[in-house]
C-alpha cells in the first residue's frame, strides 16, 4: 500500500516537470518570434499600430507616476539631506535614483500591468475565439502576423517610456526642491551634471529598461499564446503575466545592478 504522502510528492514532481516544460516551450516561442520578425520589418505599419497601443496609451500613467515619484523623492531627499546640511545634493539624489533604478524598474512594472496584461488578454482571447487557428487556415502565420509586431513594439517602447519617466521625475524633483522648497537652482543642476555620467548611469539605465522590455513582452505574449482557450484560462494567464513579469523585473534588476554598479 503506497504511503499517504505519495500523491503530494508525485504532484510536486509533476509540477516541476511541467514548469521546466513550459520554460522550454517559452524559450522555443521567443526563438520562433525572433525568427518570424521578417514580416514586421517588411510591414512596419504592423509595429506602428502596436506601438500606439503599448506605447502611446501607456504615456499618461508613465508621465503622471514619474512626476509624482520625482516629487516624493524631492520631499524625502530634502528631509534627509537637510539633516547633514547638504541639501544642495538633492539634484544628485533625485537624478541618480531615477536614472539608475526607479526609472527603469517602476516604468517596467507599470508597463507590465498596463500593456503586458492587455497583450496577454488580447492574444488569449484571439486564441479562445479561434482567430489564431483561422489565420493558420488562411496560411497566415499567427506568430509573424500577431506576436512578432507586438514583441518589437514592446521592446522599442519600453526604453522610451523609461527615459520619459526619468525625465519627468527629475522635473518633479525640480518643482518640489527648487520651486517649492527653495534649494538653490544652480547647485541643483550643476551637482547633478557633475555626478551623473552618461555612460555609467544613463546608458546603463537604458540597457536595463531594454532588458525589462524584452522580459515583460516575452512573458506577456507567451502567457497569452499558451493560455487555455477559456474565459478562466485567459483571466488566469493575465494574472500570471503581471505576477511573473513583476518578479522577473525585480530579479533581473538585482542581477543587472550587481553587474553594472559594483562600486568603483
Amino acid at each position, binding site marked *: 500500500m503506497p504511503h499517504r504522502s505519495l500523491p503530494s510528492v508525485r504532484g510536486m514532481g509533476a509540477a516541476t516537470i511541467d514548469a521546466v516544460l513550459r520554460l522550454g516551450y517559452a524559450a522555443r516561442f521567443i526563438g520562433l518570434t525572433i525568427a518570424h520578425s521578417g514580416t514586421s520589418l517588411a510591414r512596419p505599419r504592423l509595429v506602428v499600430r502596436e506601438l500606439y497601443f503599448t*506605447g502611446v496609451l501607456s504615456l499618461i500613467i508613465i508621465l503622471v507616476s514619474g512626476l509624482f515619484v520625482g516629487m516624493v523623492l524631492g520631499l524625502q531627499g530634502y528631509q534627509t539631506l537637510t539633516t547633514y546640511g547638504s541639501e544642495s545634493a538633492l539634484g544628485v539624489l533625485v537624478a541618480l535614483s531615477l536614472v539608475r533604478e526607479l526609472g527603469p524598474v517602476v516604468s517596467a512594472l507599470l508597463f507590465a500591468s498596463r500593456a503586458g496584461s492587455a497583450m496577454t488578454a488580447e492574444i488569449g482571447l484571439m486564441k479562445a475565439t479561434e482567430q489564431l487557428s483561422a489565420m493558420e487556415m488562411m496560411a497566415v502565420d499567427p506568430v509573424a502576423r500577431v506576436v512578432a509586431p507586438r514583441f518589437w513594439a514592446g521592446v522599442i517602447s519600453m526604453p522610451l517610456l523609461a527615459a520619459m519617466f526619468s525625465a519627468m521625475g527629475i522635473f518633479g524633483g525640480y518643482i518640489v526642491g527648487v520651486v517649492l522648497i527653495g534649494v538653490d537652482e544652480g547647485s541643483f543642476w550643476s551637482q547633478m551634471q*557633475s555626478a551623473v555620467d552618461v555612460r555609467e548611469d544613463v546608458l546603463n539605465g537604458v540597457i536595463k529598461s531594454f532588458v525589462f522590455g524584452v522580459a515583460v513582452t516575452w512573458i506577456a505574449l507567451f502567457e497569452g499564446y499558451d493560455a487555455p482557450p477559456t474565459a478562466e484560462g485567459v483571466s488566469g494567464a493575465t494574472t500570471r503575466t503581471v505576477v511573473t513579469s513583476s518578479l522577473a523585473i525585480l530579479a533581473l534588476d538585482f542581477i543587472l545592478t550587481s553587474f553594472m554598479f559594483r562600486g568603483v
Partner: protein
Amino acid sequence: MQRSMLDLWVGLFVVAGIAALVILAFKVGNMSTMGGGDTYEINASFDNIGGLKPRAPIKSAGVVVGRVKSITFNNERFNAKVAMSIEKTYQFPKDTTASILTSGLLGEQYIGLEGGGDDQMLKPGDSVRLTQSAVVLEKLIGQFLFSKAAEGGDPAKK
C-alpha cells in the same frame, strides 16, 4: 482612430522618448566630461590617498579639468600611484602641486592641481613631483589631543 492620426501619435511618442533621452544625456548627465580621446594622462604619487576613488574629479581653481583614471599601490616605494586623465585643452606647468582635498567637511575627495611658474608644461605620461596627501582626520585629532595634553600636563610652565 484613423490611420494617419495613429501614425501621428506614434511619431509624437517616439520623438518625445528620444527627446527625454537627449535631456537625460545633456541636461542631467554631463556629456562633455565623458572621457573620450581628448584627454592625456599624468601620474602622481601620494603617501596616503584617504578616500579618493577612481573617477573622482580633478579640479584646478575649482574647475573640473579631468578625472582620476586609476589608483594602484606601488610596492617598491609603498605609496599610492594615481593616474589622472586631464582634458587636452588644459595644460599645467612642470612644477604643479597635486593635493588631495575634501569638498566640504564630509564631502567627496578630489585632487586639486595648483599650477606653478615653470615654462615647461607637463607632457602625457609625466609625473607630478609635488604632492600633498589626504588629511586623515584621526591623525589630526590625535595631534591635537597630544599637543593639548603636552600643554596641560607640564606643571613647570605654570
